[in-house]
């Protein structure tokens, strides 16, 4: 049987301001019906461009070349624009990353679904609506009939992605391309959507391509996998082979840079790939990975490297002999030992550096011009102490109030009740100068948190200038010292942020936060905007700095793997409240709150073939303006009983370091 989709030596050349750029070069893969291909790669690897080439959706002026580009009996290379349009949404369907913006806001769900059938099959009216309802039910949407008349803004992100999937199934496609289908969703929703895609694929015998930067996602759902780097497939094969026995140094490095429990000591140094993902504008000679490869030698710099087979089901693009590549033990061993920087002593009896005492933050939200403002309790009665040397992680899904809590702890948001104290003093009484000397922050987006009109040197020096620390020469010396410490080359001093990569900018943000020698650094999603290999570099840096400078971190994140790797204590938040607090080891080995368990269950480690755990939280994350009564988690909790609906649970101590707020704790223990 010939494959459903056959891509052979696909190259895509895009028109750019400077001329041309080959975004994809010699990419080959096949997808059969009922088979899932995972394409994994960092930003700029060409994974999305390849899929857009298959869809024929690349901008005008793009050159697409291939020896074969075929779907079923149709040659996609020679197909006219009209023929391609007939295929799209009909034979090939595509699901995008952003469910919030991928549906047209001004038309109903029903119209957007039925128009697709009308377009390709000429079926409209009742028949199309019937099909739409059928599919909405299939993707697990309740009250499907009434959803047809709803608009996208009335649905949550998870529901919108379900609608998107249902919509793309309207015409029974043969192939679905899902480009980062769950990246914008919360972890618990991610598991649901991935399971849904897999189930549908099996049931309808569809070919599926999943594109993701997340090894965990690709590992769990794919049958085979293609690892892309700088526009090329550098390793491909059956998912188990590639992930269990990676051959290419890049694949090996990528896998080592992911914190996987059991494979790496918490707090240990993650394997990281030195350097940066190259720009596709580079005039490549030889192996595209050579300048970042620890095994590179002269032969790597010349000629082009062809894909060669490692076994029947695995191929790689490297000039080194297979035996030498297979012998990857040295780097793995180095990674496992780590330097145990976890051993920074923490005295839990010491006076807290930063604490929240029954802190509350209530916003008043007006929903309409005439309706009165309703209270939205973003942070509800939270007490939390941060002691010297701790890395406290605050975790929870979007909307749980973790960022508001961080803003309160930074003194950027006044609590509406309770108190925040820094070194025993009420933070509200401290001036900005006093606060900034002890308390600094690093934010998620290194693209927007640096002033584009100042040089790197000026950005880092600014706090010193504001605080009037030392002479200009002293300040500059300090800046150079901290730049070296965070791994920024000295010659960046006079560069501007736009000349730096994401990881380098995050280093600048870290340098700026540390220049005043603060005690506490609040890190709000410090790595979630970065590529995997760069994330490892930044995490290693944060751990190193903590050990060297005796820092205390408050880490706000949704990424449980990162938490497990660098946090010493974890606070789990749900709808403005703390539902569980524990030291990291206890929380991960013995989670007690049903919500914590669901969160942990949704973590996707890159385990090939393990499938996606079934996390069924029933309904969607509730609207914080109308929180459920009693325990706010009860509508999604399988253990919920009458008392949960009536009474809100308080945090109870399970051990010295472990507290949880759940009525069902004892029942569970029994």
């Amino acid at each position, binding site marked *: 049987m010939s494959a459903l989709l056959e891509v052979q030596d696909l190259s895509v050349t895009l028109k750019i301001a400077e001329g041309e750029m080959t975004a994809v070069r010699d990419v080959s893969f096949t997808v059969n019906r009922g088979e899932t291909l995972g394409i994994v790669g960092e930003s700029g690897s060409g994974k999305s461009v390849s899929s857009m080439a298959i*869809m024929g*959706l690349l901008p005008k002026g793009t050159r697409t070349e291939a020896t074969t580009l075929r779907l079923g009996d149709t040659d996609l290379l020679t197909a006219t624009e*009209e023929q391609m*349009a*007939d*295929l*799209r*949404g*009909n034979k090939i*369907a*595509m699901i*995008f990353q*952003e469910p919030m*913006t*991928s*549906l*047209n*806001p*001004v038309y*109903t769900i029903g119209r957007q679904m039925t*128009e*697709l059938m009308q*377009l*390709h099959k000429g079926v409209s009216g009742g028949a199309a609506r019937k099909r739409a309802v059928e599919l909405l039910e299939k993707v697990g949407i309740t009250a499907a009939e009434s959803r047809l008349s709803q*608009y996208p*803004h009335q649905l949550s992100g998870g529901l919108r992605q379900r609608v*998107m999937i249902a*919509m793309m199934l309207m015409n029974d496609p043969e192939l679905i391309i899902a480009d980062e289908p769950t990246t914008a969703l919360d972890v618990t929703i991610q598991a649901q959507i991935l399971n849904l895609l897999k189930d549908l694929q099996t049931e309808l015998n569809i070919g599926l391509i999943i594109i993701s930067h997340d090894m965990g996602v690709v590992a769990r759902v794919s049958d085979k996998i293609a690892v892309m780097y700088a526009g090329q497939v550098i390793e491909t094969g059956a998912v188990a082979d590639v992930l269990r026995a990676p051959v290419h140094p890049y694949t090996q490095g990528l896998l080592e840079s992911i914190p996987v429990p059991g494979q790496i000591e918490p707090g240990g140094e993650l394997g990281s790939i030195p350097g940066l993902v190259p720009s596709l504008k580079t005039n490549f000679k030889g192996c595209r990975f050579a300048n970042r490869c620890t095994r590179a030698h002269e032969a790597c710099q010349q000629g082009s490297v062809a894909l060669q087979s490692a076994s029947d089901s695995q191929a790689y693009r490297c000039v080194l002999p297979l035996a030498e590549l297979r012998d990857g033990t040295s780097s793995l061993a180095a990674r496992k030992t780590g330097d145990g920087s976890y051993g920074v002593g923490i005295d839990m009896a010491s006076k807290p550096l930063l604490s929240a005492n029954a802190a509350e933050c209530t916003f008043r939200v007006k*929903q*309409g*011009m*005439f309706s009165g403002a309703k209270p939205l309790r973003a942070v509800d009665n939270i007490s939390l102490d941060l002691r010297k040397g701790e890395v406290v992680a605050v975790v929870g899904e979007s909307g749980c109030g973790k960022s508001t809590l961080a803003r309160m702890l930074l003194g950027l948001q006044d609590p509406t009740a309770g108190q925040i104290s820094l070194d025993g003093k009420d933070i509200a009484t401290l001036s900005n100068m006093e606060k900034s000397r002890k308390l600094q922050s690093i934010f998620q987006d290194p693209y927007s948190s640096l002033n584009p009109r100042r040089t790197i040197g000026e950005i880092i020096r600014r706090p010193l200038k504001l605080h009037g620390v030392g002479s200009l020469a002293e300040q500059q010396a300090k800046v150079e010292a901290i730049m070296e410490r965070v791994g920024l080359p000295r010659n960046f001093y006079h560069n501007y942020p736009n000349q730096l990569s994401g990881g380098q900018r995050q280093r600048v943000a870290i340098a700026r936060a540390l220049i005043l020698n603060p005690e506490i650094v609040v890190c709000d999603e410090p790595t979630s905007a970065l590529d995997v290999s760069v994330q490892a570099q930044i995490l290693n840096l944060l751990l190193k700095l903590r050990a060297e400078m005796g820092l205390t971190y408050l880490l706000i994140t949704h990424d449980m793997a990162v938490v497990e790797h660098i946090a010493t204590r974890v606070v789990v938040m749900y709808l403005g409240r703390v539902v569980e607090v524990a030291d990291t080891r206890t929380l991960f080995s013995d989670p007690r709150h049903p919500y914590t368990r669901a969160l942990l269950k949704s973590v996707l480690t890159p385990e090939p073939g393990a499938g996606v755990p079934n996390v069924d939280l029933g309904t969607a994350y509730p609207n914080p303006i109308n929180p459920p009564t009693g325990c706010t988690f009860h509508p999604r909790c399988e253990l919920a009983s009458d008392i949960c609906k009536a009474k809100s649970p308080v945090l109870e101590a399970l051990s010295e370091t472990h507290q949880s707020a759940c009525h069902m704790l004892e029942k569970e223990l029994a």
Partner: protein
Amino acid sequence: MLKFILKRLALGLAVAFTVSLATFLLLNLAADPAAMVAGEDATQDAIEQIRVQFGFDRPLYVRFFEWLGNLMTGDFGDSYYWKQPVFDLLIDRAPVTLTLAAGALTVTVVVGLTLGVLAALKPNGWLDRFALSFGTAAQAIPNFWLGLILIILLGVMFPILPVSGDTSWKHFVLPCLVLGTSSVPQVLRLTRTGMIEVLGSDYIRTARAKGFRPRQILFRHALRNALLPVVSVITIQIGYKLGGSVITETVFALNGLGRLAYESILGADVPTVQMLVFFFALIFIVLSILGDILNAWLDPRMRVE
């Protein structure tokens, strides 16, 4: 949707009341109305006599509510200058101005929208450059100057259109072109930016992935979204049109409300000016409400639930 409309109407009523109060106060406090009616050379005695005769000696609030009360019953008062009911003046002059405004609006919408959409289809293409240059020129050229140039060109050098008066549709062509052109730049730019943004949006990418053809995408999926901000601006532009009619009507000797306002101000005709300001404000309010309703109809997110 009905609730939304009712709310907007209630809000509009509140604004109308505020405007009437502001108008009344402005005209009655800015200068002594008795002195204005009496004229520059009047003696103090004559002014006092007029004050009593016209009732200007009574407290301000009494006069305001009297005026407001009369307004409700359709009694707009009598013009001191024209010596006839203000209502009759309005009825007499309004059609000319409304025709002018409607014509100008048509020019604005047709030219602005078309050029805006065409420009957005190929940013930096020749059509885009032409549209933007046209917009800049239209913005830079003063209204009255364009009027005079068009009069010289199409009225004097090549006399194909009449340049003064309001007796046939031909009389309206030039004034509508002049008044309409002044609002084209805003509409054009907003349509262009809106359209470029929408065409680059994720849901347009979805529409392409669904297999829609470029024309279907433009008209079915993009236009409605791109029009949302334009609708609000157009309603404001109609307000400017009414304000601008004062100059345009004077240049083209049209006997409309703008000209009436001009003459009434010169003649210190307080009741007429008061009524005209209020009437313009009222039209403005009604248009904003219509704009809001139109926007809510176009965009479900605007409908307050």
